[in-house]
């Protein structure tokens, strides 16, 4: 379960919109916000893959100016990799001819 700590920043006048958008996302827990437009949140997803999609989605919100990451823990996933479980490859890596590398 990758877990990250983030500071999501918007213009103070847009913060309410950002908080509304974040409230609709199950993987986001908001821990606080301030008058400067900063929102402190924890993101937890089922995989690193989903973590990245989530951060991208938040970044592309028109009211969000910046997503600053401060901390990431992916020990579950790292342990699975260390045990030899294959990395998720949703699309596969293939040459144009269809051969496997």
């Amino acid at each position, binding site marked *: *379960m990758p*877990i*990250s*700590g*983030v*500071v999501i*920043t918007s*213009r*103070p006048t847009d913060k309410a919109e950002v908080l509304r958008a974040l409230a609709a996302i199950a993987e986001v*827990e908001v*821990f*606080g916000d*301030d008058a*400067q*437009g*900063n929102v*402190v*949140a*924890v993101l*937890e997803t089922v*995989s*690193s*893959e*989903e*973590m*990245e*999609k989530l*951060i*991208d989605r938040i*970044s592309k919100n028109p009211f969000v*100016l*910046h*997503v*600053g*990451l*401060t*901390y*990431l*823990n*992916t*020990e*579950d*996933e*790292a*342990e699975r*990799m*260390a045990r030899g479980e*294959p*990395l*998720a*490859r*949703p*699309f*596969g*890596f*293939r*040459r*144009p001819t269809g051969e496997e*590398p």
Partner: protein
Amino acid sequence: MMAQTRREFIRKAAALSAASYVGMNLPLGPINLVLADDGVTWHRGSCRLCGVGCRVELGVKDGVPMGLRGVTESRTNFGYLCMKGMHFWKCMRHPDRLVKPLYRARKTDKFKEVSWDEALDIAATRFAEAHKAGGGAAVAYYGSGQALTEETYLFQKVMRGGLQSNNVEGNPRLCMASAVGGYMSSFGADEPIGGYADLEKAHCFFIVGSNTAEAHPVLFRRIMRRKLDNPDTVKVINVDPRVSQTSRIADMHLQFKPGTDLSLLNAMAHVIIAEKLYDAEFLKNYATFRKGKGEAATFVELQAHLAKYTPEEAARTCGGTFKPEDIRTAARWFAGSKGTVSLWTMGLNQRKQGVWANNMMHNLHILTGQLMKDGADSLSLTGQPNACGGVREGGGLCHILPGHRPIEAEPMRRQVEAAWGIPAGRIPAEPGLHTMAMFSALNEGKIKAIWINCTSPAQSLPNCTLYNKGLDREDVFIVCTDIFPTLTTEKANLVLPASFHFEKTGVYGCTERRSQLTKKAIDSPGEARPEVWMIREWAARLAKKLNDPVIAQCIKPFVGLEEGYALPQAIWDEYSRKLTAGRDSDLSGATYAVLEQMADGVQWPAPTAEYALTGGTVKKFVKGRDPLATKLSKNDLPYQFYGAAHEDRTLWVWLRDQANPEEIPDAEYPFYLSTGRIIDHWHTMSMTGRVPELLRANPYAFVEVNPRDAARLGIKPGDMVEVRSRRGVNLLPAKVYEGPVEGMVFVYWHDQHPDRMINKLTKDAFDPGSKEPEFKICAVQVKRASGPQPLQPFIV
């Protein structure tokens, strides 16, 4: 699955971490941080990716990398990281890592695994053969702004002092050479005068040809914060043909036809002079004027030269996308602010007139005196993490020796030879081949052996199809060092598995002249080894095969040293103490012992350990703040421009003109093509393309099309679009949005798939001064090929 209690501890630790960055108190208690860190050791270093130089700590548990956090005391990132930096830990244990040396005699053979002994022997044999047949001209090294300083320094030492070849180049030729040329010709010395510390004191940001929000996101955060905290008193001007994430914080965004920004910059200078916004005192004390190839000029000549660059004319030249009054406003904001920082990157550098564009940026700062004081600087943003430290400072380009020494100056060669203990005359007097000339020489079979380190020119060179021909030649022996297979390792005879970041020790020098140390934290997978070990072992064999004791002399100080720390430390000691001492890039105070004590690193010049421990020189050329300015002071003035390239010790304002790109649209190829990066992917995607979460978000390159162009061409979002230049064709899915200016398409360059490798289309024209190619502009045809198609991302 993580135990519930541990999970809660980690969640709270994550929240506390983020909250602490913005001074927010959370009622969670610090105990969570301790418990979350149970079993984890944190190892400090620099981020592997862009030129910001963020300081990170890699979390390792049971020998496995499993986390990252920022270093809050670091003066580069203050603890913040970005999406790319958050995920590169996965590359360390990725199943695709190269773990054994691979060899094939012919490039059509399959690779077979060989031992290190065999591999190094083959590399030495083939280089020796090439050298015997053709001397230094027949061999080459092509390196990288991602290689450690110790690697670049040692490679070039063996090449120049050992093999007597100045065919030493690196991929920063493709991104930063024009910035180097600009600094040298405007200021007399390479690299910025100020640095990031100016951001929090600036009152005006002039961001040109840089999508800072996506390419240097952690630095963007500092600019954004400065603007948000001072919405009325801090102005942001964004100059870019493309609307990007960066434009969101801009008070003014000026779009223009690609290549016409030179007239925009001159028009700003025109206004500055016409409205007497220049700093006459600063000009009188510190500046002179130049034209042509360096002939003296005067202020009056500059004024006459700029007369035709009226805002009205510039607005017309730029395509009528902004009003003349906008230029006047921009000039007034620039000149009148309490401190203006300009930032730029590839939009200005990757141009046939890249040096001129850089000169024009510096002109604005010199004319207005927006330099030297806190909050004012002309800050070229570096793309790669070690283009500055390793390549620009460490002697990694064909025309410069370590310590910013031009090769053509005989005393400089003598100094380096003496430092290396090799005979005078050993280093050739002429520069070697610059990158485009080097790969042209491969095409012609003139170079018979090349070592390509940590970069993939098969994809990253402009007009890449042409240069792939040379890489395919059977009479050109290619050694590649890398961590993953790439399109370039596909062309090699010998592939050597390299240690990755945190698997080896070494220094990176970032955008703001700051060198920072990363120490080995985990072992390399399989048989991967650090490059510094490979170079030493290869050179030892070369010395025997060529029966040349001078080659042995080049590595003598490093023989027998343990490769994880002692070897790179010895290399750094030699470089910093013998080659930078007394030079403008003096890092002799920045020993490993000093660097290890620091949260971040040391800005040169830093001639003593005591001074280095404070962080070094924040502002160059200022007496009392720059030890060299104090030492080399010639008069009572506070600023001393001691840069070696300007014997008159002044800043030079250049009379430069608008000049068209090499290839502009015409009736047959009516669109501009520009290229660039997006936040998720880095360069040729060999690393970031293997991180599934990054790949999924942007699995392949798109072509961005302006909505008005899309409507005219019948292109809808997701449609497949054929983009064709005189050199090649790509088939890409379309993104339709108000990004690129009308008449221009923009393509991300990271895709390895042959249908979507945009460098097949780009033009290999280059700046005559810097030799940097014009990636940013060429002419294309654009037409809809079909509706949306299912696509597979491709990676070697």
